[in-house]
Every structure is written in C-alpha cells, then in structure tokens.
C-alpha cells in the first residue's frame, strides 16, 4: 500500500517537474533560511552558557547619575574590590578582570633563533586564579592556576603555546609583554570557545597589571571600561538580597569626588552579551530584540514557504482530483486520502530539507563572512541540529500539507471524477487569495524595512561628524610610550606624503573613552558631572579639522596646561557665549589651567548616543595613538616612511597601522550586519513569494484555459487576456500594501527610537516597496498569461 502511494507521489513529482521544482525550491529556501538563522540565533544565545557556575555568576555594574544625566557602566575602580573582599556579604567568589585592547608579546631570542614579536590585539586578559574557579575554561583540575596569584605569571591557550613554542615545552618559558614585563608561562589551557565574551588567549596574573604603565587599576582614578568585577553567589542565594548588601557595604566608602556613583547592581552573566548599555571584551553586543527579530524572520520565511506550498498544492489539486475521485470510488477512506497527501508533502519537505542541508553547507561560509561569525554546521559534532530539523520537518509538513490534503479528501467522488471542482474551489480560492496577500505583505514589510535601515546607515555615513576622518592613518603606540616617537616628529614630516601628525589618547570618535571629574572656576568642589576627556597634543584640532568657535588651540605641553572645551560643555557650564568662556579656570587631575578655546561639537561615540560635554587637553603620558594625515595618492610612500621611523623609535615593537575611516566603520558594525541580514532575507522572501505567485497564476490560468480559448475565438487579443488576469493581482498587491504600510511604519519607528540622531521615515521607501512588488507580480503574471493568451484557442478548447 505504502509502495503505491510512494510510487504515485514520485511519478506525480516527476511528471510535473516544474511544479515539483517550484515546490521543493521554495521550501528548501525557506528551510535554509530558518536553518541559517537558527544557527545564528543559537550561537548568539550560547555565549558563556557553558560555565558550571554561570547561572549564579554576575558582573557588578554601577548606576551613575549627575546633573540629570544618568547611565550605567560595568567599570569597577579597584578599591571597590578591596572593600567587597574585606566585608564579603556572602559571595562565593569575587574576582576582577582587566581586558586589554592591545599588547605585544616578545618571545626571547634563543641560541639559534632571534627574538620574535607578536601583536595580540584583544587577546590579553589580566585575571586572578579565582577566574578559573568561576569560569569553566579548561577542563577539570588546573593545579597551576594557584600561581596566577603571583605577579609575572601567565597562562597560555593551546593555540598561542604552539605559535610561540612550536618545538619546546611552553611551561617554564618566559615571555615579554609590551617590552616592559617578563612573564613566566605557568600553564597551558585549551583555546577558549568562540561563544565567549572573554576571548582571551593570554591570561596574565592580575597582580602584574599595575606594573604596566599607564594603568592605575588599583586606584580610584580614571575609570577604565575594561576593568570588570565578577562575583559568584552561593547556590540558592537571593541575588536581590546580595545586591542590597553590596550597596550597603560599598556606598559609604565611596570618596566624595566620586559621588556620582549612585548604586550598584548585579548583571547576570547571560546578559553580558545582550546589554547594549554595557561593554564586553568581545566588543560585540547583540541585543535580545535583534535576536528575536532574527528568529521571527526565520519563522516568517518558513511560513512564506509553507504558504507557497499551499498555493501550489491546491492549484495542483485539479490535476489530482481524478485520481482522488477514483480512489474514493474504490472505497478509499477520507483518512487514507489525508494520509496519502500528507505523505506526499512529507516527501517533498524531506527532499527540500535535504536540499536545504546542502544549501546551508554552501552558504554558511558566506554568511560567516558577512556577519563576521564562525558558525559551524555539522550533524556529527552537533546532533542537536537533528532535534531542530526533525520537528521542523513534521511541522512544515503539517502546515503546508494539511490544507491541500483536507481539501482533496473532502472532494465528492463524482465531482472529482468529472473535474467539476469549481463550486468547491470557491472557498479554496479565496483562502489562496488571503495567503497571497499575506505573502505580499511580508515581502513589502521586508522591503520597506531594508530601505529604511539602509537610509539610516547612509545618514550615519554622511552626517557631519564635526571632524574629518579621511586620509588619517592611526598608529597604536606601545603602551605608555609615546615619548620616543614624539621625538621623531620633525623627521616624520620630512616625507612630503605625510602632511600632519598629532599624538593623542584617541581619535575624535573612538571606543576609548576617558571620563574625568573636574573643578570649575576655582571651586574646591568637583562639578556634579564628568567630562569626556580627550588627551591630545596641540596639532589635534588642525589634523582632524575641528573648527574653533572662539579662541585657539592650547600651546604645546607635555602635561595639562590649558584646556579646550566643546560647545556642549560650554552650555553645561552655563556660559552664554563661546567668547565669554575663554579665560575661565578649570582643574583636572589636580592641575590648574584656563580655557583657551571652544570648538564645535564633534561626535565621540556612535550616533546612538547624545553628544557629551568634552574637554581636550595635553598629557603626554596618556597618548596611545599617533595620527598622521597623509596624501592618499602617495599612500605607500607614507606608510613606508612611518614604518621606517617607527622601527627607529621602537625597535622591539611590531609596526602597526590602520586607516581611521575603516576603523570608523566598525562603530556601525552591528547595524551594517542587521542591514545585510535584512537585505538577504527580504530578497529571499521576495523570491519565495514569486514562486508562490507563479503557482497561483498557473492555477488560475489552468482553470480558465477554456474561458481564454472561448474569448480568443470571440476575438480577444493577447493584451486583453493579460489584462483580464492582471486586474486580480493588482488588487491583491494593493490590499497587501494597505496592511504592509502601518506594520512597517510601526516597526521602523521602534527601531529608529534607539538612535539619538535619526532620519524621518522616508515615505519613498513605501512607494518603492509597492512598485517593486507590483512589478514583480505583473512580470510573473504576464509571462504566464501571455503564454495562455498566445496558445492556439482550438487546443485550449479541446482540453477538458
């Protein structure tokens, strides 16, 4: 019995190749997309979910508030850790982590090998031995972690151990960090997985961090965003209670000048990857809304594919009705027919799933590249995928197959035999119309969203930033060691390709943000709000084209001497005009100086945020970068020259450079990713929608072949026939448009709310979506309708 069903199904599929192709392709596309999105979503949700104590581990974060401005940060000044440790409110583990952006490792010379230098950006973590008790990196018992409490010790991951010591036992060897510290390798652990926000490869003893200038991580001082404190609660503890205890214990100890630190809260470990307000070491935060949106898009694409299937299958029903009729005459029961067609759907879905596994395999590398992820797809290593695909297969079979099966099984045997389906089809056809409208709505919403997201991105890229980021090369200087290169300044400018140079803590827009308290106008009390501070030399303004509203740049100095403020700072200080601001006294880090200039506001972090009040001043010890404005036509010469000079200044440090406008793009990395996702999946939704449309049209044309024949005999032209069919679809597209507009508008309104600087929703996006779907519908339509219209009328009359 099964065999004949199977045979009928296979032969049916082979006979109607184009139908089968459309069906399998549509489903395969839908399943592939949902599979890819499943992989992405699962990856993003898996961050740091493998730590045994993960569910009771939290990061301590601070809510700060001053002068009406409030915010949160996860940066914990060192003294707070000491206070907590001395008055432990019942925490099982307290451990501080300091992640470094950049670092250089030197493998010392041996008898037969010269010293080797490696830059390891983002791979450096300063941790205590408790870090490994809190987090499950490395398996089982790691006896050597105890020694991490001593200064000058280091644990390597397998990858770096092999890289540094390909032919030697790494443990016991010494590595030099930033040409400052010698560190002894005390152990090797396996590489950390991709799904962690602690992407370290070198775990250096926390005690060593203080010795590395310019950090003063055990002081209250400047708050560094990469200095975090993690705690593990005892099993069963109430985290709200502990949070309250922490506040009770720590708040009284906070010095007066840090009074803006209002309260502490515990951020669950699983939130670290998703909370946009707080930083993490992988520098990649994916908000839950984005993850939900991706899951939703996956479901929507799958649904579109199912709708597609329903359209095609019910259209196909006409061809199957004779068979169903005969089976019923022979006494086949309702249930058996349902099972037969569900079985066929299962077969198609199964074929589509196999195809989608192949498609996923092929497309994953591209997706990985686009999204900068390292997703893997393997049933062997990842049997969970089967748990995803199995139910998916059943679900899709049911959603896609139930209605067509039910429709066919419900046919009257005689009517079915006579192909007299029209009366019974009326209900089916209107359902199909609803489905097509739904599909068009989905397509249009996706198109509109893609356009709006794209528009917002373009706005970012073109918005006046208040400075010029073009033709600027940034060199990251060896930690705390700008002095040497500064002495080569004149030498640098000798090369005509290098037009200007400036030394600074960070370029105008940067992830490196320093916030400082300061005193104003001779007051002994610090101002109730912090300033964003840019340490830079006097050439900074000229190099980045930051225009002055009043005054001038500060005079050259290696320490804080004079100040330049931005317009926002002037307003916050309640100084009516820029001119009047000149001459006011400021005090920062114990140094007095006067305001000598006011510059226009320029953007300092991504456009998600408000422009902050800023102070720019000189401080040689805080310069992490050299910026060089170069002649882009002589790019190579400029870089070569920079490298030459660098090698003279820092013989032990690897030369590195980046183009600022490229780095700048990273600020909008997440948005670009989202846009890419939207683009791809909107396109696929449209493709699937077209397949479904094609199915519906084929059905209608098939159903009306005779009518078309009669009309032609009576003298209708091909155009008349095309118009006859088009009317219907224009209506459907328009109805879909009426649904799509408010939905897309609402979604985009919500999305844009996150941006402080945003576009108004461009109405032309709606227009484009409408026109695109209408054109696609009409083109698909007319190809099929013209085919019917051009067919020999006698031929079409003969087909019964």
């Amino acid at each position: 019995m099964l065999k004949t069903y199977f045979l009928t199904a296979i032969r049916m599929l082979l006979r109607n190749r184009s139908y089968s192709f459309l069906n399998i392709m549509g489903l395969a596309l839908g399943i592939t997309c949902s599979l890819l999105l499943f992989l992405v979503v699962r990856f993003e949700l898996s961050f740091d979910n493998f730590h045994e104590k993960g569910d009771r581990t939290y990061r301590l974060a601070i809510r700060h508030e001053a002068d009406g401005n409030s915010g949160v940060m996860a940066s914990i000044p060192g003294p707070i850790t000491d206070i907590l440790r001395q008055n432990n409110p019942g925490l099982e583990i307290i451990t501080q982590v300091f992640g470094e952006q950049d670092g250089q490792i030197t493998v010392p010379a041996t008898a037969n090998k010269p010293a080797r230098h490696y830059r390891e950006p983002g791979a450096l973590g300063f941790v205590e031995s408790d870090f490994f008790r809190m987090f499950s990196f490395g398996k089982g018992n790691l006896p050597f972690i105890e020694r991490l409490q001593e200064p000058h010790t280091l644990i390597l991951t397998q990858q770096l151990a092999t890289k540094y010591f390909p032919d030697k036992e790494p443990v016991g060897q010494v590595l030099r960090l930033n040409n400052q510290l010698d560190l002894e390798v005390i152990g090797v652990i396996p590489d950390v997985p991709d799904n962690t926000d602690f992407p370290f490869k070198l775990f250096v003893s926390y005690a060593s961090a203080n010795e590395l200038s310019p950090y003063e991580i055990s002081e209250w001082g400047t708050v560094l965003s990469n200095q975090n404190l993690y705690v593990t609660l005892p099993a069963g503890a109430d985290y709200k209670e502990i949070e309250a205890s922490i506040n009770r214990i720590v708040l009284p100890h906070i010095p007066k000048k840090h009074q803006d630190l209002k309260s502490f809260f515990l951020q669950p470990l699983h939130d670290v990857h998703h909370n946009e307000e707080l930083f993490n070491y992988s520098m990649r935060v994916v908000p839950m809304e984005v993850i939900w949106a991706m899951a939703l898009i996956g479901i929507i694409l799958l649904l579109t594919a199912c709708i597609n299937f329903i359209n095609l299958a019910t259209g196909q029903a006409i061809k199957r009705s004779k068979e169903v009729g005969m089976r019923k005459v022979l006494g086949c029961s309702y249930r058996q027919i349902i099972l037969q067609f569900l079985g066929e759907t299962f077969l198609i879905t199964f074929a589509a799933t196999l195809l989608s596994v192949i498609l996923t395999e092929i497309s994953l590398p591209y997706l990985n590249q686009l999204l900068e992820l390292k997703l893997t797809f393997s049933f062997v290593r990842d049997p969970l995928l089967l748990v995803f695909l199995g139910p998916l297969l059943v679900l899709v079979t049911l959603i896609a197959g139930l209605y067509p099966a039910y429709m066919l099984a419900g046919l009257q045997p005689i009517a079915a035999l006579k192909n007299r389906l029209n009366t019974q089809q009326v209900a089916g056809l209107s359902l199909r119309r609803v489905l097509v409208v739904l599909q068009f709505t989905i397509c249009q919403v996706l198109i509109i969203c893609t356009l709006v997201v794209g528009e917002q991105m373009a706005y970012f890229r073109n918005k006046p930033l208040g400075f010029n980021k073009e033709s600027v090369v940034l060199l990251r200087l060896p930690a705390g060691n700008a002095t040497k290169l500064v002495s080569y300044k004149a030498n640098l400018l000798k090369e005509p390709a290098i037009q200007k140079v400036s030394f600074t803590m960070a370029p105008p827009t940067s992830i490196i943000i320093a916030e400082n308290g300061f005193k104003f106008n001779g007051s002994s009390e610090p101002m109730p709000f912090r300033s964003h501070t840019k340490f830079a030399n006097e050439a900074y303004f000229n190099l980045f084209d930051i225009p002055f509203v009043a005054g001038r740049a500060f005079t050259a100095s290696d320490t804080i001497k004079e100040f330049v403020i931005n317009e926002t700072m002037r307003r916050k200080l309640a100084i009516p005009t820029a001119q009047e601001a000149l001459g006011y006294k400021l005090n920062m880090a114990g140094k007095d100086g006067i305001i000598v200039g006011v510059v226009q506001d320029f953007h300092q972090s991504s456009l998600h945020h408000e422009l902050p009040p800023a102070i720019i001043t000189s401080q040689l010890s805080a310069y992490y970068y050299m910026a060089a404005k170069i002649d882009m036509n002589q790019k190579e010469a400029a870089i070569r020259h920079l490298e030459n000079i660098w090698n003279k200044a820092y013989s032990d440090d690897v030369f590195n450079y980046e183009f600022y406008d490229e780095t700048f793009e990273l600020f909008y990395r997440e948005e670009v990713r989202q846009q890419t996702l939207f683009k791809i999946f909107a396109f696929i939704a449209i493709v699937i929608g077209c397949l479904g449309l094609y199915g519906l049209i084929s059905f209608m044309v098939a159903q009306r072949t005779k009518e078309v024949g009669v009309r032609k005999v009576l003298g209708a032209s091909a155009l008349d026939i095309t118009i006859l069919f088009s009317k219907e679809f224009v209506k459907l597209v328009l109805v879909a448009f009426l649904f799509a507009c408010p939905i897309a508008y609402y979604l985009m309104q919500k999305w844009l709310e996150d941006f402080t600087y945003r576009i108004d929703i461009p109405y032309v996006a709606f227009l484009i979506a409408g026109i695109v779907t209408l054109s696609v519908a009409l083109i698909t339509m007319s190809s099929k309708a013209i085919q019917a219209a051009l067919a020999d009328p006698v031929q079409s009359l003969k087909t019964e």
Partner: protein
Amino acid sequence: MKNIVIQTTQLEKKYLTDTIETTALTGVDLQIAQSDFVAIMGPSGCGKSTLLNMLGLLDAPTAGNLYFLGENVTKAPERKRANLRRQNLGFIFQSFNLIDELTVQENIELPLFYQGVPKSEIKARVQEVMQRVGIAHRHAYFPQQLSGGQQQRVAIARAVVGKPRLILADEPTGNLDSQHGREVMLLLSELNAAGATIVMVTHSPADAEYAHRVINLFDGQVVTERMAPAVAAI
C-alpha cells in the same frame, strides 16, 4: 426467490445549485437480483448516471429508501458507504478513470490493497484477472500508452478483481469504436455468465441486447421495464 442485491423504493434525487432545483430522479422502485444483467437506457439528462451513482453508493438520495443486501443504507455515513463500496462494488466508467501515475498492474492492484488482501494473494489474483481480460502482456504499461479499448479492459479488470457483488458500468462503450465496444460487451457477458451482477447505463440498443433486462428512464422516472432475450455469445 433469487437473492436481491440492491433495492430501491420511491427513490428521489434533487440537485440544489444556488437557486435552481433539479429533480434528477423521482419515485424509482427497483430490484436487482444476484446474477442479473440490467441495462438502463433513456435520453440524455434523464437521470441514468444519477441512478447509477445512487446504486453505487457514491451519492445519497434525497428521499425514498435504498437497500443494499437487505440493509437500509439510505442515510449511511460516507465512512460506511466507502466501506461497502470497497467490499462489494466494482465501477466502470465511460472515460475509464485509470490513475495515470500507476501502471496497468498497479491500477488493478488498487482495490485489493484497499480491501487489505495479503500481498502474496494480490499478485496471483491480478495476474489471473489480467489474463482474463487479455491485458497481461501490457501489465507494465501506463494508461496513456494504451488504446481506448485496452484502457477499458484494464478498468474492467480493476472493477472485477475485488470479486464485487455488483458491477456498475456507466456507458462502458461510450468512448470506444464498435469493434472495441463489442469486445468489452462480450467481456461483460462472460463475467455475467460466470456469476457477476451487472448494472450498465448505455445509449446503444446493440449493447442493451446483451442485458437480461432493460430499464427505460424518462425525466427521472422508470417508464418501461422489459425482459430482453438472452443473447447467445457469438
């Protein structure tokens, strides 16, 4: 008294489409006995097919009663009717109605599958029936690859393979030329001689000659019923 296979009393069928009501059958009293060969004749639209569909339990009457093997099945649910069809009825149509995706053999196997006949038995029975209708050499062909006469023979084979109590044929020769038509009629006569009960709708007086009994329908009513002389097979 012969065994009555099917009986109708005051059978009526009305079709209701939108606002128009068509009375296709009214006041039909009929008895079909075991081993009967009945021909139903009448002008186009008089309700022949409708009657056959009632007798074949493919459609339910709107009034009157229908007894199948003595059991009143007038209001039997579709489940029950499907069951009875499967066990007791064989159908032959003017347009053959073979399933295009199945081979000759598979088409003929179908009723046996639905009856739940064991696999080993199916093979033998299908083989035997194919021999009987002379189609065995075409068992692996698809319907589209056969002539009309051959297709109808396959349809007949399919109708009889399940050993039905009653065979219903709606213009079995309607789509065939006279040569093929005669072959089919001879085959039906043979089956009848071997014990099958047959009710056949036809327009052809020549075909009606093969039947024992002719029922004339006009405007949904039985007008005459005459016994036909048994025709000797030539």
